[in-house]
C-alpha cells in the first residue's frame, strides 16, 4: 500500500516572509491520505495550504515532522527523486519546446528512449483532449489548452502522487467546470492519488473524496464533503464554507440560549459548555403560512415576516426576519408562489437537524 502519511509536519517562517505575514507558521499537520484518494486542501488565501503542498513536494524544507509514502521515509528525499508530479497555477510549459517535447520532458529526465517517450506523450495528449496539438508551441495554445498540456505532462511519467496548486483558478468559470470534469475522469481512469489545493469551495466539494479545511496555518477539519457541510467542526469552518444561519449563543444547564432572542433550545445529549454557535441549514427549515400550527416536542419554531425572495439555480432563498435575527431558508418555486414579501410566516426545524459548534 502506498498511502501518504504526514506526521507532525511543521514549518515556521521567520524573517524572510516578514513583509507578507509577520509570524506565519504552519502548525503541525498530522494526516494520512490513502492510495488513489482525491484529497483537497481548502482554505482562504494565506492559510498555508500552498506551503503544505510545497512541503509535500519537497520544494520547501520542513522544520519538523516526517513524510512517508508506504514504507519509505521521503522527508529528506529531494523533489526530483520523489516521483511526485505537480501542476501549478500557471501552466509553466517550457516556451522553447513544443507540446510533445514538453509532455515528454519528465520521461526524458528518466532516460526513456525518444521513440517511446513521444509515443507515450501522444497517448497522454489524447487523454486530455489535445489530440493533434503535439507539434504546436505553448504560445499557440489557449490558457485552458495549456493547462491541459501541463496536466498531461504531470501524468505521463506515472507519478506516485499528483499535487495540484490551484490549477484552475486562472481560468474563466466555464472552462474551470470543463477542467473539473476532465480531472474527475482522469482521476477515475488512472487512479492516481491527487492532492488538490483550492480556495474554491465548489471545486473542492465537486471533486474530492475528502477535504481538509485549513485556516491560519492549521488543518482544522478533515472530512468528506457531506460531513463537512452537515457537521462543520467550528464556527470558523462553517463561515468559510459559506453556511447560512450561524446563530450565536451560549450553553446554560443543557440549554442553548440564543443571543438576541428569547428562544431556548434543549440540547439533547450533546451539550458541551463550550458551544457558542448553532447552525441551521436552509434546506432543513420548513416554511409554513399556517400560523395556528402547534409545535411538537421535536421541533422549534421561529416566527417572522418574509423580507426577501431570491431566485437561486432552480429554487428560492427566502429571507425571513424574526425577532432579532435573519434566517435563510430554501423553498421550491411552488412554495415561493404561495408566499409574498411582508407576509407573516412560521419556520420550523427538527431538533435533530440542529448542529451545535464551538468557536
Amino acid at each position, binding site marked *: 500500500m502506498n498511502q501518504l502519511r504526514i506526521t507532525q509536519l511543521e514549518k515556521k517562517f521567520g524573517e524572510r516572509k516578514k513583509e507578507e505575514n509577520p509570524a506565519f507558521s504552519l502548525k503541525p499537520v498530522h494526516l494520512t491520505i490513502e492510495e488513489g484518494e482525491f484529497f483537497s486542501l481548502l482554505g482562504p488565501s494565506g492559510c498555508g495550504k500552498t506551503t503544505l503542498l510545497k512541503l509535500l513536494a519537497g520544494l520547501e524544507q520542513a522544520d519538523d515532522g516526517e513524510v512517508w509514502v508506504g514504507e519509505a521515509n521521503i522527508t529528506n528525499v529531494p523533489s*526530483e527523486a520523489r*516521483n511526485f508530479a505537480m501542476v501549478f497555477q500557471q501552466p509553466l510549459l517550457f516556451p522553447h519546446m513544443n507540446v510533445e517535447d514538453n509532455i515528454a520532458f519528465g520521461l526524458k529526465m528518466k532516460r526513456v528512449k525518444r521513440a517511446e517517450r513521444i509515443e507515450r506523450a501522444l497517448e497522454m495528449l489524447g487523454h486530455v483532449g489535445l489530440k493533434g496539438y503535439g507539434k504546436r508551441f505553448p504560445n*499557440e495554445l489557449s490558457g485552458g489548452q495549456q493547462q491541459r498540456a501541463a496536466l498531461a505532462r504531470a501524468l505521463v511519467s506515472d507519478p506516485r502522487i499528483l*499535487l495540484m496548486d490551484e490549477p484552475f483558478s486562472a481560468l474563466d468559470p466555464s472552462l474551470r467546470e470543463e477542467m473539473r470534469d476532465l480531472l474527475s475522469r482522469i482521476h477515475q481512469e488512472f487512479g492516481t492519488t491527487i492532492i488538490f489545493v483550492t480556495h474554491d469551495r465548489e471545486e473542492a466539494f465537486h471533486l474530492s473524496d475528502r477535504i481538509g479545511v485549513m485556516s491560519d496555518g492549521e488543518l482544522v477539519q478533515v472530512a468528506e464533503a457531506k460531513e463537512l457541510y452537515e457537521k462543520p467542526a467550528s464556527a470558523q469552518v462553517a463561515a468559510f464554507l459559506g453556511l447560512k444561519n450561524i446563530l450565536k449563543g451560549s450553553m446554560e444547564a443543557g440549554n442553548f440560549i440564543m443571543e438576541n432572542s428569547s428562544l431556548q433550545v434543549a440540547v439533547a445529549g450533546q451539550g458541551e459548555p463550550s458551544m457558542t454557535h448553532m447552525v441551521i441549514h436552509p434546506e432543513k427549515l420548513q416554511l409554513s403560512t399556517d400560523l395556528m400550527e402547534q409545535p411538537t416536542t421535536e421541533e422549534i419554531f421561529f416566527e417572522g415576516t418574509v423580507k426577501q425572495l431570491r431566485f437561486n439555480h432552480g429554487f428560492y432563498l427566502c429571507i425571513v426576519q424574526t425577532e432579532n435575527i435573519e434566517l435563510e431558508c430554501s423553498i421550491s418555486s411552488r412554495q415561493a408562489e404561495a408566499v409574498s414579501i411582508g407576509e407573516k410566516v412560521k419556520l420550523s426545524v427538527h431538533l435533530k437537524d440542529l448542529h451545535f459548534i464551538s468557536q
Partner: protein
Amino acid sequence: MMKKNHLPAKIFLFLFLLMFIFLPFIPLVLTSFSYNWIWPNVMPESFSLSAWDYVLFENSSTWQAIGVSLLIAFIVTAVNIILAVPAANAFVRYPLRGKWLFEAIIFAPIVIPPFVAVMGIHLTFLRIGLTETIFGVVLAHISPTLPYVVRAAITSYSTLSVDWENQARMLGAGPFSRFYHVVLPHLMPGIAAGASLSILISLSQYLITFIIGSGQVMTLPILLFPFISGGDPAIASSYSLLFAGMAIVALLILDLALKRYYKKKQAAAAIKGVRE
C-alpha cells in the same frame, strides 16, 4: 494612420544612421586609397593601393594581430560568461548581506577608468611574471568587460521565475538538467547581448593591452596606434577599416552561433509556426 506616423520616424532614423555611421566612413575609405592627399584639396590628387598592399600583404604581423585580438576577445568573453552566470544567480536569488558592496566592486570598472587599476595590476603581474603574456592580457581585459556581462545576466535572471525550475524539479530534473533545459534557454539572449559588448570592449582595448602586454602582445589596436599618432594617414585609415571589419565579423560569428543554438532548440521552428 499608423503608417503615416511611422514614416517621418523612419526617415529620421535613416538620416541619423547615414550621418553618424555611414558618412564618417567615406573620408576613411578615401584616405586609405589616397596618395599624397594634402590641404586644401577636397579630393585626393591620386589614388593608390599601396596602403592596403602594405597592411594586407607586406606587413605580415597584421593577420597575426587580428588572430591575437580575436583569440583574446573570445577567451575573455568565455571567462566572463562562466563568471557572470553564477554571480547573477547569486545576486538575484539569494538574500545577501552587503550585496551593494559586491555590486559596487563588480560595476566599479564602468565608472573608474580601468588604467587606474591596471597600474596596480601591472606591478603584481610583473612580480608573478604574467606581463608580456596573452594570459596576462586576458586577465587584465576581464575587469572592464565583466560588468556588462554580469549586468545582462542579472537582467535575464530577474525575469526568470523560480517556478520554472520548481516545475522542472517536479518532473524529475536534477540541478544540471534544470540549468541546461530550463535556465540556459531563458538566459541565452541576455548572455548574447553581454557577450557582444564584452567582445567589442576587449577588441578595442589599447592602454591595458599596451601596459600589461608591454608591446609583446600584438593586438590590432597596438599595431594601429603608431600610424594614427603621426604615421602614414593612409595606412592608419586602412587599419581602422580593417578593425571595424574585424569587429563586425566577430559579432556576426556570435550571431550565427546563437541562431544555430536556437535552431537546435527548435525555437526557430516556433517563430515559423506562428507566422504560418
